């Protein structure tokens, strides 16, 4: 074997383990699901087989697209608001030692509250339309961004901070030139969490009050015993979540390219 064939064969086995393995596991799982449902004669209302779910798309594609647009656009807006708000809160708190020490513990504490339990309050305060859902989704997804960014700002390289002091940099310069760039990797890890939280927030909001959206559609299909449609809606929700997550990863890769060149 030449060097080249060895290299391509190891590359091939690497691709096989990164893509092939998870795909194989997924296929095995789906086949097992299908066989189990068919051999045990489980009624469709309880658990539809994968082929039933795929079949159920037929005829509801238009309806799903309509609801997907409602949920997707609201999730996206909530995600953008959450990252901006998270960034702003983190920067604001880190510019003042007093504010940081006074508020940071409360933010950590707040992170521990099961915030889903607060969702009905937002309907209470802001009504049953989009603003209520958007505020709630923004509220639950801005925490991870703010906390991660604050951690990043506080963990800027100590040597770099000392260099700034030696060069007579003022606080604002140190913040912009060193702390912010050092916090970016942390910011993105928070934003990736926010991407999934934003979708959860919107769906929960739709469960409580909505006239459209996939959360609304899932409840509607549930009330009619159309279990396959619930699964179909979930697949679309997954796609929305993946899209938001993918966008964040793309932005992160651009940041990494700038970082490492």
């Amino acid at each position, binding site marked *: 074997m030449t060097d080249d064939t060895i290299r391509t064969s190891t590359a091939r086995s690497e691709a096989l383990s990164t893509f092939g393995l998870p795909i194989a596991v997924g296929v095995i799982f789906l086949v097992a699901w299908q066989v189990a449902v068919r051999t045990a004669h489980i009624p469709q209302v309880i658990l539809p087989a994968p082929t039933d779910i795929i079949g159920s798309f037929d005829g509801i594609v238009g309806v799903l697209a309509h609801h997907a647009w409602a949920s997707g656009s609201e999730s996206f807006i909530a995600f953008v608001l959450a990252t901006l708000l998270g960034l702003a809160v983190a920067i604001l708190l880190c510019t003042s030692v007093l504010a940081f020490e006074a508020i940071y513990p409360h933010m950590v504490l707040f992170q521990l509250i099961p915030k889903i339990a607060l969702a009905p309050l937002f309907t209470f305060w802001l009504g049953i339309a989009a603003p209520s859902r958007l505020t709630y989704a923004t509220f639950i997804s801005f925490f991870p961004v703010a906390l991660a960014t604050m951690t990043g700002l506080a963990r800027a*390289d100590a*040597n*770099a901070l*000392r*260099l*700034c*002091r*030696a*060069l*007579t*940099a003022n606080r604002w*310069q140190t913040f912009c*030139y*060193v702390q912010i*760039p050092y916090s970016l990797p942390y910011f993105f890890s928070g934003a990736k969490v926010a991407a999934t939280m934003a979708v959860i927030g919107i769906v929960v909001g739709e469960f409580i009050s909505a006239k459209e959206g996939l959360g609304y559609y899932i409840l509607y299909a549930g009330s009619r015993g159309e279990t396959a449609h619930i699964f179909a809606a979930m697949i679309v929700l997954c796609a929305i979540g993946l899209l938001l997550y993918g966008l964040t990863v793309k932005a992160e890769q651009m940041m990494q390219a*700038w*970082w*490492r*060149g």
Partner: protein
Amino acid sequence: MASNIRIEDVRKVYRTGKDDVEAVSRVSFAVHEGEFVAILGPSGCGKSTLLMMCAGLEPATSGTISIGNTVVRAPRADVGIMFQDSTLLPWKTVLDNILFPVRVQRRPKAEYRKRALGLIEMVGLSGFEDKKPHQLSGGMRQRVAICRALVTDPDILLMDEPFSALDAMTRDEMNDALLDIWDRYRKTGLFVTHSIREAVYLADRVLVMTRRPATIIEDLKIPFARPRNRAIGETPEFNEICGYLRSLIERKQDQAATRREAA
């Protein structure tokens, strides 16, 4: 402008609750304008703390440090500094890292760009201007740090074991590069190291510092003329000086060990 450094009766005590640690104990010496002085001592003897106080990065517990006619209370823009770690910003190119002090001190960038490119050429990094730090070797990163320390043309250069993290061969190269820079730019320099040969090779004067007490026990003039090259490292005189300094440091450590055993 006067660029001599005067250290008078400087002490540094770290309060650690129960018992205080005296990191620097009543040190006095002067570095004259254009002179290169090395502070030589074992690790943990307080030599880096002393340098940080000269840089205005640490306050002295008592005593005064002055540069020219002013007392050092904070970092100054006319002092260049090198640390053990090159401390390059990973997202900036070589050129932008070198120009970082220019940016921070709001100096005209276009003017200093030319100087930066000249420095890059001098340390042999031409062609690497647009590379990022992770694409460079440890020695190259420290070369960039030298350029950054020199870009604003400071009168004084403070160096805190800048080459101690490098392998022996790279270190020799860096020493030659620094000698070359010295011959060209003639700064006032204070260099902290725990390498005896490095101190003797580079400095006009070597100050020996010990651990307990953390003070200077010898102030030795190094007689070699500049420009220097590696050949002086092979001379009997060079080795004699190194041997003398080594015995001085070892004797001091033995004494300390005996004292500890007696106690």
